[in-house]
């Protein structure tokens, strides 16, 4: 039985291939000149260059964080190329004009763009390496006044909006990787939902790292004005390489009065081979500011990839009665390491937060939940409920829980629960009795374990996530 499990766990990475497109690559290394080069290449206004340089100055003064429960070789930030763009052949007017090589890549990934757009009704803003190549459904969204475009486009088309919000949730000097991102980000997504608009479809961006040794630094900014709502999907897959790649993204969400932002991620970057060679270093800062009264920010993530994941999607609950949610499934296998969790900072009165985290570790991997629930003295009537469950598959892996609970208000109520379990022989036996084979049984048990999180995902993503866990773990228990 464990051989079956082994097979399932060790499924080769299906998305490992390199697309050969001529890339316009900046020389390796990071200094002010490179930042100026990025800024010039992207034809940016002076304020954005100042923003980058300020971040760079802060970054120079900072040290790489040492507290996460992960181990890796020191990253040489001077050995990374900070800008890579596919060379523009000509202006694109329709999908047919998109580089066929590129389209084939998406096909291999199983995302035929026009089909996907037509069938699923999803507007896909494709980021290929750093420059956005094609954007669909833009008109349809524009009709209701929603802005959904690449952030470099937004800098030119809506400079006031970008300037007003960029860096307000994650300041340039917030942490080491956020500062690095603020200095060198090349592209990303900007999304603006005006007052009272309910976004008619799920917005989605497909991220892709392509050029070897080019770190990717996306920047996502989503603003939901009073009474609006949006659901945003982020999905990742990366091709197979043996040198480690750095991915340091920043995501900022801002929800004003009565606004509602739902952010879902399925992350399946290349995790390295079974010996732990290669794989993506995923050091991401994600934070939402529930600024207005009755606003709501909800993070859902399914983390299955990356050699190292270091990510804490957080909510700052500033508005009265605002709500923060975090639903996470993190799966690690082989030599993967994940240190992930959330922060719920309660500032406003009667703010509420829910944390549901499910960690599954297999192989030689280490999976940590690290969470912070802070109740400020002003947050009277605040309420938090946290639940983090771990499942261990095999005796070589580790599961860790580090929940920080800091309460400075006597009217708050905070609850935290954690448990650890494994798939029991008796459970498998029960399934076998009912004529269900081990493989299927394990898949069902794991899906049951993750159910609370999966049901938060939008439909298509839930299907994808279930499949992904199937690849990674189905049968890995014995």
């Amino acid at each position, binding site marked *: 039985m464990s051989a079956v499990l082994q097979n399932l766990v060790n499924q080769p990475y299906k998305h490992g291939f390199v697309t050969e497109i001529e890339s316009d690559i900046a020389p390796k290394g990071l200094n002010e000149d490179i930042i100026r080069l990025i800024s010039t290449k992207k034809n940016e206004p002076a304020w954005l260059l100042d923003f980058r340089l300020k971040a760079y100055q802060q970054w120079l003064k900072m040290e790489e964080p040492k507290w996460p429960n992960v181990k890796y070789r020191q990253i040489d930030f001077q050995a990374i190329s900070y800008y890579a763009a596919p060379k523009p052949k000509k202006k694109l007017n329709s999908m047919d004009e998109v580089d066929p090589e590129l389209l084939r890549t998406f096909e291999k990934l199983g995302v035929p763009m026009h089909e996907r757009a037509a069938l699923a009704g999803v507007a896909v803003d494709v980021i290929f390496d750093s420059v956005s190549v094609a954007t669909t459904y833009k008109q349809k969204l524009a009709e209701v006044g929603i802005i959904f475009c690449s952030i470099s486009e937004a800098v030119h088309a809506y400079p006031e909006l970008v300037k007003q919000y960029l860096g307000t949730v994650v300041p340039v000097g917030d942490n080491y990787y956020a500062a690095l991102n603020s200095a060198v980000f090349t592209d990303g997504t900007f999304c603006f939902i005006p007052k009272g608009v309910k976004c008619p479809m799920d917005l989605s961006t497909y991220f892709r790292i392509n050029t070897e040794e080019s770190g990717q630094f996306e920047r996502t900014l989503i603003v939901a004005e009073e009474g609006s709502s949006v659901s945003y999907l982020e999905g990742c897959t990366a091709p197979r390489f043996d040198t480690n790649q750095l991915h340091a993204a920043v995501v900022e969400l801002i929800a004003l009065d009565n606004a509602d932002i739902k952010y879902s991620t399925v992350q399946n970057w290349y995790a390295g081979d079974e010996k732990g060679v290669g794989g993506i270093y995923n050091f991401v800062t994600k934070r939402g500011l529930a600024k207005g009264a009755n606003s709501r920010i909800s993070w859902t993530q399914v983390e299955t990839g990356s050699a190292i994941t270091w990510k804490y999607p957080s909510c700052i609950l500033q508005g009265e009665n605002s709500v923060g949610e975090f639903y996470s499934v993190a799966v690690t296998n082989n030599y993967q390491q994940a240190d992930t969790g959330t922060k719920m900072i309660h500032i406003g009165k009667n703010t509420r937060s829910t944390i549901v985290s499910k960690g599954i570790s297999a192989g030689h991997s280490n999976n940590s939940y690290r969470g912070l629930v802070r109740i400020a003295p002003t947050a009277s009537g605040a309420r938090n409920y946290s639940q983090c469950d771990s499942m261990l598959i095999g005796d070589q892996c580790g599961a*860790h829980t580090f929940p920080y609970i800091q309460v400075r208000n006597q009217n708050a109520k*905070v609850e935290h*629960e954690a448990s650890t379990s494994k798939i029991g022989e008796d459970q498998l036996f029960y399934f076998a009795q009912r004529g269900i084979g081990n493989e299927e049984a394990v898949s069902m048990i794991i899906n049951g374990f993750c159910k609370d999180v999966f049901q938060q995902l939008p439909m298509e993503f839930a299907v994808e996530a279930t499949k992904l866990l199937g690849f990674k773990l189905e049968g890995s228990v014995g």
Partner: protein
Amino acid sequence: MSMSLVNSNSYLESLLRGQPRLPPSPLAWFNQLRANAVDHAGRLKLPTTRDEEWRFTDLSPLVRQSFQPALAAPALQAADVERFSLAEAAIRLVFVDGKYMPQLSTPAERLGNRGLIVTNLSSAITANAEAIEPHLGQYARFEDNLFAALNTAFLHDGALVMVPRGAAIDTPVHVLLIATQPEVASHPRCLFIAEAGSEITILEDYVSLNDAIYVTNAVTEIAVGDNAQISHIRVQRDSTEAFHIGNCAVSLGHAGRYRSVSVALGARISRYDLNTVLDAEGAECAIDGLALINGRQLADTHSSIDHAKPNCTSRQLHKCIADGSAHAVFNGKIMVRPGAQNTDSAQSSRNLLLNAKARIDTKPQLEIFADDVKCAHGATVGQLDSEELFYLKSRGLSGAAARNLLTYAFGAEIIDRIPIASLKYRLERTVLEQTKKTEP
């Protein structure tokens, strides 16, 4: 004995100053242990809030004071300590400012308990060196613990309890540590050894005669042999101006049982580190704690339960009640080592905030490296339940009485687990008194 201080921290220097006056022991290993500790104490830095383990406990008020080692202890009369004595505990060791007081103590040999040794360390160490050497300084590691290093650097006396093989002692042992002088740093040391199949109950009791500012830096080492049991009660009732740093390290043998109840009521800043290693199969520990603090007190409890071997069980319930602008900290780490299958561990941290200015920081922490385990932890922070208050009021209790009763009941759950009736009664009175002070 010479010592070199690499650390320029004048505070540490002043703390170490008294050390060279200690007479060398005839035992070479003992002198070596002390010399190693001096060496480490000189090298280690005072922890700050930038150290993860001390993140919520700021020791700067401690550094602002200067402390001297106690040169002489006042000669207390039996009447002075009478109020601390317990009816059940006929065996008693009394230390005043860290100095052993034979005239106030009732060591075990006087009671004629064959084989049981309860006495001060320095009087028994030469005769029992062989039994003591494998334990003393072996559990409370000081390589990266400044306070344990300081304590060991000053090591020359302390409380010693050795229970012989198979002996079940039904009389509790009372180790009473009294602080009397201001600006004194004392370094009490306890060593409790229960040999295979033995059983004992020990009370470690820290009290003060006044409101002086002093620092107590205690280290306790406990070795529970195969199938032996130690019930360890630790009560800290220091002056509310004092500093109390306690380190306790426990090692358990095959099917050994360790039950601990620690109660922190006093001290301006108190810190208690309890490290339990379940070092053989079938070992069990039950670790309970209560911190009841008020005013500007800070009580920090760090516990670590290390499941080093398979088939061990641990249970922990820690409660904090913070009133005034007090600050309670709890950090409970449970470690399950690779191969420690069939571990069964449950931990619960429950906290009650009674004042808007009070503050709680809790972190129950699990680190698991084995797959066939049952581990659960939970933490709650809250206030008194309004429905429970309403119920009591509907039965005719005043608001204050209802609050008092509920707070008392919250704390009593821990105190109930103390196996010494008169102490339990006394502590329940204390909790009741303290909760009465609570303002609505």
